[in-house]
């Protein structure tokens, strides 16, 4: 056990201040301290991506980042991507195209997919598969996840065009 330090992070637009041991992992901070349980724990070795969040514009696996490393940063989790009144096209597409089964990987999957589409709004199937390779799903075999992301991309691009 080490001395508690003061940290300040912004999660889904809300500023949070607290005392914590520096060894505390960010996923623990989110889930246990802040009750943000959308991101899940699947492996604790950065392989499965169930804990994926966005930190300062990058996809990060929060199970292997210390809270100390996240100090002062802006974090977005699935809860900040869309809710009942403002569903993100990815959330709609995953349901529409059966891109999930047990749902455990889904928050990380959608969080990563959102970032992927920001980086590359028109990905090829191979680019989607490569870009999502850090997120493991045990249920779907990925085929419908790829389909969901393609559908969301098409929808987002159409909406963007219509707005222009």
């Amino acid at each position, binding site marked *: *056990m080490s001395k508690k330090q003061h940290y300040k992070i912004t999660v889904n637009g809300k500023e949070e201040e607290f005392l914590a*041991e520096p*060894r*505390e992992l960010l996923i*623990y901070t989110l*889930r*246990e301290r802040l*009750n*943000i*349980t*959308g*991101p*899940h*724990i*699947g*492996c*604790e*070795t950065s*392989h*499965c991506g*169930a804990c994926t969040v966005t930190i300062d514009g990058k996809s990060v696996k929060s199970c292997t980042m210390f809270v100390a490393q996240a100090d002062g940063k802006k974090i977005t*989790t*699935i*809860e900040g991507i*869309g*809710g*009942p009144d403002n*569903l993100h096209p*990815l*959330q709609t597409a*995953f*349901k*529409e195209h*059966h891109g*999930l*089964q*047990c*749902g*455990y*990987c*889904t*928050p990380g999957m*959608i969080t990563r997919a959102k970032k992927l589409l920001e980086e590359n709004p028109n990905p090829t199937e191979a680019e989607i*598969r*490569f870009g*999502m*390779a*850090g*997120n*493991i*799903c*045990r*249920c*779907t*075999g*990925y*085929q*419908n*996840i*790829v389909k969901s992301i393609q559908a969301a991309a098409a929808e987002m691009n159409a909406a963007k065009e219509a707005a222009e």
Partner: protein
Amino acid sequence: MKDEVTSREERIENLKGMGCSRKRVEDARFTQGKGNYVDDIKLDGMLFGDFVRSPYAHAKIVNIDTSAALEVPGVLAVLTAKDLEPLGLHWMPTLAGDRQMVLADGKVLFQGQEVAFVVAVDRYAAADGIEAVEVEYEELEVLVDPFKAMKSDVVLRPDTVAEDGSPAAGAHGPRKHHNHIFTWEAGDKGPTFETIDNAEVVAEETMYYHRTHPCPLETCGCVASMDKVNGKLTLWGTFQAPHAIRTVVSLISGIEEHNIRVISPDIGGGFGNKVGAYPGYVCSVVASIVTGKPVKWIEDRMDNLMTTAFARDYHMTGRVSATREGKITGLHCHVTADHGGFDACADPTKFPAGFMNICTGSYDIPTAFLQVDGVYTNKAPGGVSYRCSFRVTEAVYFIERMIEVLAIELNMDAAELRRINFIKKEQFPYKAALGWEYDSGDYHTAWDKALKTVDYEGLRAEQAQRVEDFKAGKTRSLMGIGLSFFTEIVGAGPVKNCDILGLGMFDSCEIRIHPTGSAIARLGTISQGQGHATTFAQILASEIGLPADSITIEEGDTDTAPYGLGTYGSRSTPVAGAATAMAGRKIRAKAQMIAAYLLEVHDNDVEFDVDRFVVKGAPEKFKTMKEIAFAAYNQAIPGIEPGLEAVSYYDPPNMTYPFGAYICVMDIDVDTGLPEIRRFYALDDCGTRINPMIIEGQVHGGLTEALAVALGQEIAYDDMGNVKTGTLMDFFLPTAWEVPNYETDYTVTPSPHHPIGAKGVGESPHVGGVPCFSNAIQDAFRPFGNRHTNMPHDHWRIWKTANELGLHD
């Protein structure tokens, strides 16, 4: 009066009943991060428990010193076997009739075994406490090879030796050796051996189906909360069989069953991992009783891979005999089954090797004999059905490899060999040589459709050309065509021969129709991603004529759901799905009487039509189910009690036998050992199809788990019993990058004994997929003399096969 102008087709569509690709009702919460998994549960004052685990695979425990751990800030208690012994809880029963240590009782039998349980205020304090527990071990000789274990003087389990020093009888009969667990036989030994000994052609092969693990993305865990004021224990957990867990907890703790409430919340995948009872559950319950506070236990990934529920680990030897024309005459299979330190298989009691006796597959084999020997070793306990019915993946892999080997022996095309040996459509119901009665099938139609779709002959021609090109030095890539035709046996099962720990394997459904025409139905099963809340509502919609969108499905809470044996072995649709249909029919029967009363005709003068009862011959006179529901509660009807509810406990008369034809086309780089799946075609026949979208999703997922097992996933041990694949760094889970797109197809051969003709599909793609991937690899090397190589076919092993066949010379 909208109803009157709505067409019949529209009324059917409104129901979203069976056969439509209804979108899943579960998805809203999961896509918004609002699922409720066990680790999301937080209770006031909740503590966290975690295990001190053995670093050794076989060792005597000399001493456990917990004093320093108890000084660690935040640590409240440390439990050892000595604390559990007075309660009789230091050992627990396994589902296979064996016993398993909850906490190490004098010795440890596998690496990662639970030695002490540290209870602390949070995970970090528990981890600190674990570091401070001092355990003194004395290493013992390690046995990781079941064949050596059967010859060794080393006694792994002192309870296997009788007072006179001879091996004591086990739960499934006499032991041959102190490290032997059971021998299980099926079929006729004498006639089978005689047939094989006198056959024109015999193919023999030895194969090892390696140890692997279901590895759902969510590990196992629970929260135990003992309310000492009311004497009630609530246990939330990742349970594939919540009612069975309640009964087991009651039996071992002495707490009466009505005072135990077991709740399976959302489950992040199961695949067989979450069927059994684990030491973590027992320790959490005890810790909650001791501390008076709720206690949570959640495995980390290493705990999960190293300790709970391995699958497979079958050493199989086969002999298959045939005429020179290729008609199979006999089959013999022997299995040496490595069960690890405790026999913790989750099989029906009478089947210690599960349904391995489905190993005659889809073929009309007149005589067969199977013998399975279970053996203890210094490995983790388990032997669960990883995305399959009990040991069916092993059985199907065995027969589908034996067919390929026989094809080599006969110098025959393996597709044709299958075709001439298939059980014919008119032979169903078909009594197999090893005892099962297959309910229905049309194998030839499925096979022909599959071969035609992929242009099988064209593929073989292309493959022959590739071999020529390879030999001519024009390419370094080989082409493999993987074939597999599987018959599953699912839906356990008839109570007359299927029970687990004496609990009959029926299942149940309870329906309550609300006055305004919506409903809630509760089942004894529990979804882990299969979409029960969506599909069971579809079954009901078709049966009772209320829209699926107006029906809530609830599972997993033993205080509210009717008793059932849970979800595994593809039993939900065959058993609970049948219960749902039957309960729906009881609702309909009462609704018919109400409708007749309301329409002022005799009961027999009305008939059900989609969503209503109509007067026969006068369709303009009708009462909708919605109107009937309202009347059931609000109108005094002579001779009929108010309300509209039904319950059904369904004991299936037989198992169901889904089948399918899979074909995989692969290109293999002989210099890197890298396989590239060019095409995968999967035809499934699961009988009546409830939701095609969900079926397809199940097939994609099952095939991907098959790809994993065939091409790299394994739980490997070194000679010291160290687990070499304990993290996702070493344990292969395919990513989107490694997985191909699958082509799905189907035929429909309904089950004749199931109320809606459905057979179950969740596990078929895994069962049929593993041999298909493996056969593709083996087939690529067949022209160069390959007969059989063991899975997993990772790049290194494929390279090695190529090397041993001289392809690098």
